[in-house]
């Protein structure tokens, strides 16, 4: 378990140096998007108006307010990633995304893509949106504002994290490891409750 402070954009070598349980803090830019954004890109065939190559994607639907020309944050938090699983391999393959930040992880197809293209899944602490919002220095751009709150958001972040590497480019999946351990511990939990199997 090592700790890293990383600056975006990420290259393949950096992503392949990360292993599950490492802790990452990010400086630079990350792109926020979620369900509707990805349906708009992949199912309705719209090319993202900005290059995502090397950047992390954050699964979010932010509360923002527009003050003049500027978007200001009210609260930005992170949502469950599994809903966006279907689009994740293509984000890596077609658009060079190097990290996906979310909660609850992704499935096997996405893990295989991380291995192939050199990317990681970084788990954020769900529900800790106040802290997350203070780590966003500026909403630099909102692409496709008609999709707001599910547009593409370019956030400039400082010390964004801590993020736990939960899926790495070596096929390791911390969620699966924990689930396997829980299965091992389960008979003991049943015994404690006098449940006969």
């Amino acid at each position: 378990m090592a700790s890293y402070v990383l600056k975006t954009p990420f290259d393949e070598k950096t992503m392949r140096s990360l292993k599950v349980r490492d802790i990452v803090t990010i400086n630079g830019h990350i792109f926020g998007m979620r369900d509707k954004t990805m349906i708009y890109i992949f199912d309705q065939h719209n090319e993202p108006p900005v290059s995502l190559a090397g950047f992390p994607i954050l699964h979010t639907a932010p509360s923002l307010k527009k003050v003049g020309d500027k978007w200001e944050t009210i609260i930005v938090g992170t949502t469950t990633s599994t809903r966006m699983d279907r689009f994740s391999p293509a984000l890596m393959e077609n658009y060079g995304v190097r990290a996906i930040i979310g909660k609850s992880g992704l499935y096997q197809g996405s893990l295989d893509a991380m291995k192939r293209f050199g990317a990681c899944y970084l788990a954020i602490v769900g529900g800790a949106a106040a802290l997350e919002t203070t780590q966003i220095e500026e909403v630099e751009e909102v692409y496709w504002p008609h999709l707001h709150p599910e547009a593409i958001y370019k956030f400039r972040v400082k010390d964004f994290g801590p993020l736990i590497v939960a899926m790495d480019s070596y096929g390791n999946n911390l969620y699966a490891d924990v689930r396997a351990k829980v299965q091992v511990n389960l008979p003991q939990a049943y015994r404690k409750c006098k449940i006969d199997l």
Partner: protein
Amino acid sequence: MGKFNYKLVEDVAKELYIRALKILPPDVRESLKRAYEKESNPSAKTIFETILKNVEVADKEDMLICQDTGLPIYMVEIGSKFPVDGAKIKTALYEGAKRATLEYPFRGSSTHPVTRENPQTSVGEGLPVIHWEFNPDSDCLNILMIPKGSGSENMSTMKMFIPADGLAAVKKFVIDSVVASGSNPCPPGIIGVGIGGTADLVTWLAKKAIARPAGSRNPDPLFAELEEELEDAINGLGSGPMGLGGDISTLAVHIEWAYTHITQNPVAVNTQCWPARRARAKIWANGKVEYGF
């Protein structure tokens, strides 16, 4: 009765929603601190540290704790000595929840179940959820507000067992529901369990269970013991905060119960996330309001 101004209930309903989203109850803070101290897994400890820091930032910066402002639930207890017009209270709660969303403003999540249209108001047909209870000894209107996020609510389960399945089936169902929910409900939160009643009542009992102060015990020793037993078993699973491994998988198991039918053995599980948000207000007929948890 005519004199009481129901606009006050509307203002309180608005204020309660916002307070619940910002101010974590002291019992939940204490439970999280104890969890942080007890936790031995290093990444889990980092998660608890981040959780506590988040609560601190929300306090200091006057911010919402979590971006999922949820669906509004109001649990209303009407005292016998409080002059009440239930229909006006209902309207006031609807308007209050809507005003909180529009005036703060925060993201509204209420959505039409078929067209998926979102009015951005947190209310709509059937919303806010309102539960009514009555207290013969009280002279006030006691409103408990819970904003329920979807990460945890989506993990809700209910099953109608039969008497032959016994209590073991009920306990196994609770444990299996927690295992199946994994990292989704932002653990470690409160596991609310309903036992007995009918299909609708058991589900409500599970929700009522998560509304109790974290770690409070059911006054009936039979159910208090059951709470401790399940809590101990679930915390031995190793699932940990955010389902990423660790010692603490739940802050508390709470059970609420009711009598059931001779042929029935119902159980429901309602999970609450680690920000177990709730806010309470007591309103008196003379217009006095007292906020709490």
